[in-house]
């Protein structure tokens, strides 16, 4: 029973990790808490749903299409909302407020056009079968979720560590002015970071949409609670921290639901968030700079 729950927790946790990864990447490089991130999650899921329903696309088409469209939306949103503030070197709270207003407008616009009713993927979109593995049941959807997360994380790490773009991104994260002086195209790098994180957010949206088979405009907003908890527990801007914190949160939630109550499960993320702030604001690995005011 415990091992089954650990597996379920691992699956849930990898979606949290995937979701938080893009969110923390934006903060780590661009120093912005970008609240439109939740919308990338919703729009990714919705685009995947639409291509599946209207064009009968399989998951192997719908997932990348959903994720990449979210990436494009992210680039556009960042360009419209944050270019001006970046140029003025406005404080982090100004950009937080802009993205807050924008994300409410975006969710509400989406709700006006597609309604707030829960929508589902077409029947038989993914195989519902599960395999037994020494008494542990794993469904194909669950394997898809963990597998996709694994691949995306690996690609992200390789990209950041081994490519020229990765080097540009890391330089920008270090110091924008220095990066510019070294001849790095800052605008392009910013767009690339937005695209990467939007894609990650969109992919997480498709996978969670599949897992719970419920898609709705405000789903990204509801996911943000987990996103906030994970990036703070992992340390703001810390990618490895977010991965581990995401999995940890998923496992803890499933165990709480199993051994205490499903109501308590909902409070896990917030409780750990507050505890982290009290006792370890720099995050799990202490790499985040919790700037003392």
């Amino acid at each position: 029973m415990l091992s089954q729950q650990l597996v379920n927790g691992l699956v849930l946790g990898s979606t949290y990790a995937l979701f938080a990864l893009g969110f923390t990447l934006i903060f780590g490089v661009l120093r912005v808490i970008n609240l439109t991130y939740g919308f990338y999650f919703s729009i990714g899921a919705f685009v995947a749903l639409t291509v599946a329903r209207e064009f009968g696309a399989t998951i192997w088409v719908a997932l990348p299409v959903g994720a990449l469209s979210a990436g494009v939306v992210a680039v556009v949103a960042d360009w419209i909302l944050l270019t001006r503030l970046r140029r003025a070197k406005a404080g982090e709270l100004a950009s937080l407020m802009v993205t807050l207003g924008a994300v409410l407008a975006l969710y509400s616009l989406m709700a006006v056009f597609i309604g707030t009713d829960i929508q589902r993927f077409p029947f038989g979109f993914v195989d519902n079968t599960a395999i037994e593995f020494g008494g542990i049941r794993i469904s194909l959807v669950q394997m898809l979720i963990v597998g996709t997360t694994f691949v995306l994380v690996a690609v992200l790490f390789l990209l950041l560590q081994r490519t020229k773009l990765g080097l540009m991104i890391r330089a920008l994260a270090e110091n924008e002015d220095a990066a510019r002086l070294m001849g790095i195209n800052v605008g392009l790098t910013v767009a690339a970071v937005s695209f990467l994180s939007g894609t990650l957010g969109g992919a997480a949206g498709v996978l969670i949409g599949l897992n719970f088979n419920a898609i709705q405009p405000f789903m990204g907003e509801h996911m943000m609670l987990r996103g906030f908890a994970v990036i703070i527990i992992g340390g703001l801007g810390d990618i490895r921290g977010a991965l581990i914190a995401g999995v940890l949160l998923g496992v803890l939630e499933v165990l709480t639901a199993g051994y205490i109550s499903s109501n308590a499960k909902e409070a896990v993320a917030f409780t750990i968030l507050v505890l982290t702030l009290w006792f370890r604001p720099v995050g799990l690995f202490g790499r985040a700079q919790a700037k003392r005011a």
Partner: protein
Amino acid sequence: MDGMTMAEWLDDFLFTYETLIHALGVNGLLALSMYCVMAVGQLSLGQAAFMGIGAYTGALLTLNLGLPFWLVLPLSALAPAVVALVIGGPTLRLSGVYLAISTIALGEVLRVLYINAEWLTGGALGLSGIPRKADLWLIYLLLFLAVLGFWAVGRSKIGRAMEAMREDEAVAGVMGVNLPVYKMGALVVSAMLAGLAGCLTAHSNSFIGPNEFGFEMAVTILSFALVGGIGTPIAPVIGALVLTSLPEILRPLQDFRLVINGLIIVVAVLFLPRGVIPFRLRRAP
């Protein structure tokens, strides 16, 4: 006014627009609660959450324990203040994003808990049948007192310290402003105001539900303060008045109300950075 006396007309007017007039007063209080935090250069997005705590506390005390309203009201202000202490304690020592993040998260977790704790909060259906004890005069008296209080504080030494913090926190600290005390004080007072507003809403609508105090409300409250500006305490109240009556006037735009609310914030921050938002634009390092 065909033949009506002034008094009759006023009665009629109050009857027709009662809900709106209540909402105007309550939203004025909420705008002030936002003002209070922003006046020290912080950003709390938990005003709606604090309001919700006040509303549920007030409604439950009235419905389950039958406490008198004069006792319910201060208790509904106290409950969110305690929560503000728990959240403000660690976050106010850190950079501003931590308070903003943890207060949005607070709103989201409370929404889910209200829905799940059915035995206490009535779940998704919320609580109804709350006696209408929040009279119009009481709402506006509290609003008036709050404006007056902020005005008096603003003109005192405390007000100057708050302004200094808003302009440059580091400098204010060096000048001897006790930053943690001011920040925490502002957050607690703002939570209490929001709690009052929540309790008044519960006792004037006679119904509260879990989705009324969520993300949308948080953004709406922020838009009050951003539209009005926070130069003086009356400014955010005016912002609240304008934004609350706007949807009544622009009925056809009803569906797009939240879209507009969101865009207002975007426009205010992007294009009126000095006039409307309090945050100093940081110079190049």
